[in-house]
């Protein structure tokens, strides 16, 4: 395929790029800047006042409770990343090397589950995990006690929801990475006498690192903003950062503080993305496409 060089005076280039660029600048970049500006203002009696000071930021950095919520959010996000990656690796490998014939059907089934209304799915988990839900009911039928597991409204249930909602991201990024690995490399390892397990750990896994990293970063960043899972599945007992932000805006009606907390979360996410992309760029030349 030939890549055509275009100048900014070309009408085709303007037509293909400008509408989306204008939309995103107006409704994404400007709002972000606006959030930054708001964090330097103050509130009096639930009303915004233009003060231009650091009062809000002083509160953010002096309140221990905000940071313990942030820390809980980070911990949960990291656990979710770990679980998603570990679960996705064998699934992606099987999709590439074992299930080539039914691959598309499996992918559609995963995409469908991913695209379905998240509120309904969380509610489905509630009905499944409930004390008198499907899980306990089924175990009771085969002779266990009435309540085999009681994790609904505990952090474990929140984690199930987070892994559930983010798993497709790691499955698909790792799958993409693995499907691009040159099979001759694996064959060469087998020919040299390496076992399948050894080949997997010394050839396949290192070459899949870009996909693992990209998927991991996506899951991490998206996990920073979860709100449904802690609320519906976690019972609201251990609120995470998104819930804190929502309360600051809606219940306390303190917009500058909400804006500042939003920015803290965005900065944590952005730093992760930047660090990961730097790492990715160093990994890529080594794994190079053949």
């Amino acid at each position: 395929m030939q890549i055509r060089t275009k100048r900014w005076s070309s009408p085709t280039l303007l037509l293909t790029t400008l509408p989306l660029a204008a939309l995103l600048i107006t409704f994404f970049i400007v709002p972000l800047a606006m959030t930054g500006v708001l964090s330097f203002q103050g509130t009096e009696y639930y009303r915004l006042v233009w003060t231009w000071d650091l009062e809000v930021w002083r509160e953010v950095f002096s309140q221990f409770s905000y940071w313990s919520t942030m820390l809980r959010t980070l911990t949960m996000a990291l656990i979710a990343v770990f679980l998603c990656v570990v679960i996705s690796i064998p699934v992606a490998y099987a999709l590439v090397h074992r299930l080539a014939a039914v691959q598309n059907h499996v992918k559609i089934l995963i995409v469908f589950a991913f695209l379905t209304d998240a509120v309904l799915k969380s509610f489905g988990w509630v009905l499944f995990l409930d004390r008198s839900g499907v899980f306990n009911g089924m175990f009771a039928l085969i002779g266990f006690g009435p309540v085999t597991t009681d994790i609904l409204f505990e952090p474990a249930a929140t984690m199930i929801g987070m892994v559930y909602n983010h798993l497709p991201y790691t499955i698909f990024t790792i799958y993409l990475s693995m499907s691009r690995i040159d099979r001759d490399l694996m064959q060469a390892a087998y020919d040299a006498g390496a076992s399948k397990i050894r080949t997997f750990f010394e050839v396949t896994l290192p070459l899949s690192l870009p996909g693992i990293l990209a998927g991991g970063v996506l899951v991490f960043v998206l996990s920073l903003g979860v709100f449904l899972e802690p609320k519906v599945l976690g019972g609201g007992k251990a609120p995470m950062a998104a819930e804190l932000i929502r309360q600051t805006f809606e219940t306390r009606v303190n917009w500058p503080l909400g804006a500042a907390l939003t920015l803290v979360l965005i900065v944590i996410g952005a730093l992760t993305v930047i660090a990961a992309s730097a790492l990715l760029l160093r990994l890529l030349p080594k794994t190079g496409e053949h």
Partner: protein
Amino acid sequence: MKFHRVEHVAGNTVLYGSVAAVLLFFYVPIFTLILFSFSDSRFLVFPIDSFSIRWFGDLLQSRDFLPALRNSAVIALFSTLAATVLGTAAAVAWIRYSFRFQRVFQALTFSPLLFPQLLLGVVMLLWFSVLGGWFGFSPSVWTATVGHIVYITPFALIIIAVQLYGFDDTLEDAARDAGANQWQVFREVTFPMMWPGVFVAAIFVFLLSWGNFYITYSLAGTARTLPTFVFSGIAVGSSPIYPALATITFIPGLGLLFFAEFMRRRAAAKRRVEIHTE
């Protein structure tokens, strides 16, 4: 040799087992909802004693259901239309052109993907409140539609861009040699070759918008869509009408996806035949 045999069996067990387990995991809440939608009892407890379809009727009679359905449809249709057009254009610029500030354009159009939806919703809500103050409007279905467009367009863009990558442009050259102008080349050659990818992207983002909770929750004001209707419902107390809602929305969604896959394959097969016969 014996070790290899054990390794082979163990490896296959892990691989096939993990795919089966993950598929089961993905469908646990979905099957649970479908199961409960046919329960006769008002209480959602297992095992289910008797079955009925009465909750589907109750759902239709619920005062908030039809407006929520209409809002979901309006938002999803308009945002899908906009996202598909904008995403297709931008994907062409991403993959087929090279220009100054291309990296900036790519970063700008990709970055909403890296944003947790709730934060995207919150920052847009702040901005819409400012704009609303200036121009005198309040959050509604339309602000939510704009929010959905910002959220789903990068998905459409990526799906189309992936399929454009490695695009075979010999047919375009042939058309140009035969005297077609730029618009004719696009209409007669480029678009017919691109459209399966565009169609798949459109269905994907339609379902993404249809099932979206966070953006609507932040931006729609008092208007409700199906996900926010369910959210406010289960916050008050669970009722069998929500599983019923799940059942009637899941089936068309799954059908739509298999239809998209069927269209994509048919188009791919047709293209292979055309190229062979030339």
